[in-house]
């Protein structure tokens, strides 16, 4: 308990006294946290809260019970604060009554005051008149007989109400006669004062000049004690006022009670609707619109808001599985989809711990991490595997949002989920498929490697074993020429020459075939290759063949590309040797090598010669295996060279083609992609 300061400080202040009130809504409980003041006030408040007519709607994180506590924070202790806590109905009545009472009091007060003043004036006037009459009956202020006469006149005043005493003074201001004479001249002034009657407190007295034949002969003095009359009058007035006020009060009360209905009624009903919404989470409630004033506006806004929330909720329910739990995980609310997917009825779910749908498929750390995250007020997202009532499992994509109160602690968790069982199933299948695929790919790769190895062995033995007999053929033919060449006829010698040529031809074929098959099989070893250097090497390797010829080389700078060096060299060797071969009839042979950069994605390289060219009609045959467009006698060759080029270029992701004209030279083009792509 602490001591607070206020208009009537110091007084004891309780901090956070939770008032137990019979309301269902937990929130109402929280809202009733008050800083209790004097016991009376707390009690007062308690009574008013027994009718939970003004509970706020279950607030979200945005407004939170902050809203509620703000209402109860900074409780004052004056009547004004107390007033704020009354229900509207009572407040209106109270206000009307208060107004009535105040008005009444003021009115009565004013009337009464006026009355009093008038009454006193009247009394004065009356006395003045009476004193004049009495003065006429006083003959003089000299002789005893006149004294006796004066005495008689004065004594007639005894019948006058509130009469106390009267006296006559002579001309010199000396007391001449007075009545009553028994008490003596106490309470009678010794000399006359000012003319006129006046009140002094409740005593009314004054002086009246006595005249005889237009000359003053003395002064008359009369004294009254008006208190009885006055007090009587006051009492009567008060009684009257009280009576009237009571009557008016009752009338006012009845009237106000009747008249506040159209004001407080709609408000109360609006509040009822709000409470219904918050208690039952029923957003289909609509408050009745009864008036056209601000309350009507409020009702409209309320209804609209409700309709919107309801619509949003319905929209959410269309898609999502929703559950709301308390901080301990007990289920407070589930939507239809939740019931559908978990196969429990709503009754079976409400109040239960959310663990009811646990499938036990998640490790402890997973669950712990979940709770830690949300208990700290953070949103948790993840995929969970839950179990339905019949034991079947389902997957949900879950987002859990903690709703925080003013202290930043969660007071409820809203879990929004989407059914992803189907998707998970697909994922699983996909993974299986992928795995299968990978296994099959592995198998296939192994098979291919096996095949490759066999081909390797095959070509190895082919190259060796096929060459040997060929060599023998050529060899013995040569020996024959050596040993018996002279004995042979011209024809015979020619036959031998042909045999030798054929053997040589076959040898070349075998070599080319081997190269071709190697190019097809070998793995590409990508590296940055300076094409210019390959051209240099090719030209050099042909130096011997072309040493006796005039060849003009036109070299344009070639780019650096990504590719297999050995294979790309083979391309240039083939193309340039072709250029050299087919330009043999020319003197000088002009061979041009260059590159163009027309496209963003690839280089185009060309080798041009001014040789015998070819007929474009057969250009499609150029790159075929063993395809030739010339006769052996014209130009030797196996027809593999360009097939090789084509194969290598294709493996690098490029294309090859040729342009030529009979007897006007040929240009061979090929492209290489700028970005490395293995299309092996």
């Amino acid at each position, binding site marked *: 308990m602490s001591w607070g300061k206020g208009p009537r400080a110091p007084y004891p202040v309780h901090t956070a006294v939770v008032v137990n009130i019979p309301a269902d809504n937990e929130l109402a409980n929280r809202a009733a946290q008050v800083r209790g003041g004097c016991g009376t006030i707390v009690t007062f408040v308690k009574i008013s809260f027994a009718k939970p007519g003004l509970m706020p709607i279950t607030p979200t994180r945005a407004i939170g019970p902050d809203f509620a506590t703000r209402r109860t924070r900074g409780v004052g202790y004056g009547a004004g604060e107390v007033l704020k806590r009354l229900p509207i109905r009572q407040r209106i009545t109270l206000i009307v009554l208060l107004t009535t009472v105040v008005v009444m009091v003021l009115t009565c007060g004013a009337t009464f005051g006026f009355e009093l003043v008038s009454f006193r004036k009247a009394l004065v006037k009356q006395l003045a008149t009476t004193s004049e009459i009495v003065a006429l009956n006083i003959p003089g202020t000299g002789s005893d007989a006149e004294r006796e006469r004066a005495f008689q006149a004065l004594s007639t005043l005894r019948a006058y109400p509130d009469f106390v005493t009267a006296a006559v003074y002579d001309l010199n201001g000396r007391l001449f006669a007075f009545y009553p004479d028994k008490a003596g001249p106490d309470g009678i002034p010794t000399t006359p004062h000012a003319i006129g009657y006046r009140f002094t407190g409740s005593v009314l007295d004054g002086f009246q000049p006595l005249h005889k034949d237009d000359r003053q002969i003395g002064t008359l003095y009369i004294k009254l004690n008006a208190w009885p009359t006055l007090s009587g009058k006051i009492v009567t007035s008060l009684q009257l006022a009280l009576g009237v006020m009571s009557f008016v009060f009752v009338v006012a009360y009845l009237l106000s009670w009747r008249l506040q209905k159209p004001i407080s009624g709609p408000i109360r009903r609006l509040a009822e609707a709000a409470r219904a919404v918050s208690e039952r989470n029923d957003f289909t409630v609509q408050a009745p619109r009864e008036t056209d004033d601000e309350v009507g506006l409020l009702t409209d806004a309320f209804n609209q808001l409700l309709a919107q929330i309801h619509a949003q909720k319905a929209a959410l329910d269309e898609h999502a599985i929703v559950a709301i739990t308390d901080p301990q995980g007990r289920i407070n609310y589930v939507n239809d989809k939740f019931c559908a997917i978990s196969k429990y009825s709503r009754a079976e779910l409400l109040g239960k711990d959310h663990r009811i749908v646990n499938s036990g498929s998640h490790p402890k750390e997973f669950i712990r991490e979940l709770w830690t995250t949300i208990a700290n007020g953070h949103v948790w997202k993840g995929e969970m595997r839950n179990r339905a009532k019949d034991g079947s499992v389902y997957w949900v994509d879950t987002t859990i949002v903690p709703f925080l109160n003013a202290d930043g602690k969660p007071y409820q968790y809203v879990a929004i989920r989407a059914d992803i069982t189907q998707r998970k199933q697909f994922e699983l299948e996909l993974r299986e498929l992928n795995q299968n695929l990978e296994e099959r790919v592995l198998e296939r790769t192994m098979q291919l490697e096996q095949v490759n190895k066999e081909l390797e062995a095959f070509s*190895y033995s082919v190259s*060796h074993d096929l060459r*040997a007999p060929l*060599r*023998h053929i*050529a*060899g*013995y033919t040569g020996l024959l020429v050596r040993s018996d060449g002279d004995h042979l006829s011209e024809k015979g010698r020619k036959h031998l020459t042909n045999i*030798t040529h054929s053997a040589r031809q076959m*040898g070349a074929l075998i070599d080319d075939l081997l190269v071709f098959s190697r190019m097809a099989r070998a793995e590409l070893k990508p590296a940055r290759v300076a094409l210019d250097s390959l051209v240099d090497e090719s030209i050099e390797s042909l130096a011997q063949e072309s040493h006796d010829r005039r060849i003009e080389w036109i070299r344009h700078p070639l780019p650096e590309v990504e590719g297999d060096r050995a294979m790309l060299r083979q391309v240039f060797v083939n193309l340039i040797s072709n250029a050299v071969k087919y330009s043999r009839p020319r003197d000088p042979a002009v061979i041009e090598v260059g590159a163009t950069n027309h496209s963003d994605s690839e280089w185009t390289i060309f080798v041009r010669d001014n040789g015998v060219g070819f007929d474009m009609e057969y250009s499609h045959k150029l790159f075929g295996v063993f395809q030739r467009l010339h006769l052996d006698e014209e130009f030797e060759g196996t027809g593999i060279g360009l097939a090789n080029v084509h194969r290598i270029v294709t493996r690098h992701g490029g294309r090859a083609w040729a342009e030529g004209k009979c007897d006007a030279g040929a240009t061979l083009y090929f492209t290489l992609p700028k970005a490395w792509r293995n299309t092996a």
Partner: protein
Amino acid sequence: MNTLKRILLVEDSIKDIELTLEALDEHKLANEVVVTRDGTQALDYLMSRGNFTGREPGPPVVMLLDIKMPKMNGLEVLRVVRSDEALKKIPVVMLTSSREEPDLAAAYELGVNAYVVKPVDFQQFAHAVSQIGAFWAVLNEPPPTTTNAIITHDH
């Protein structure tokens, strides 16, 4: 004083042997050519054992070695020769029809002196062989043997 320069030819094909001998003979390199038809025989010869026990002592000035041979192939022979203290200095020239890279790589790995692919064309073949003979048997200085000592192997 010129000792008789001996060439060891290790070759299984009779035809290849004949062609090679003819080629060597053409230039009258006046060498003795010892021929063994497989690897084991070659090693026997080099180590003066088996059939060749009691042969004329002295290593050949060059060994012409084919690769594809039955029983022991040329590369295996090369390995043995190169790992033998007494034999490792003998110049070896691979004379084979295989241009395959693995064979090339293996041969040089084992320390072969030269690798010649037998050309199909006879003229070229004869030219190559005579060049080999002229170089190793005439021009090249063979590794020294211990003066007047006879290399024997105790087997």
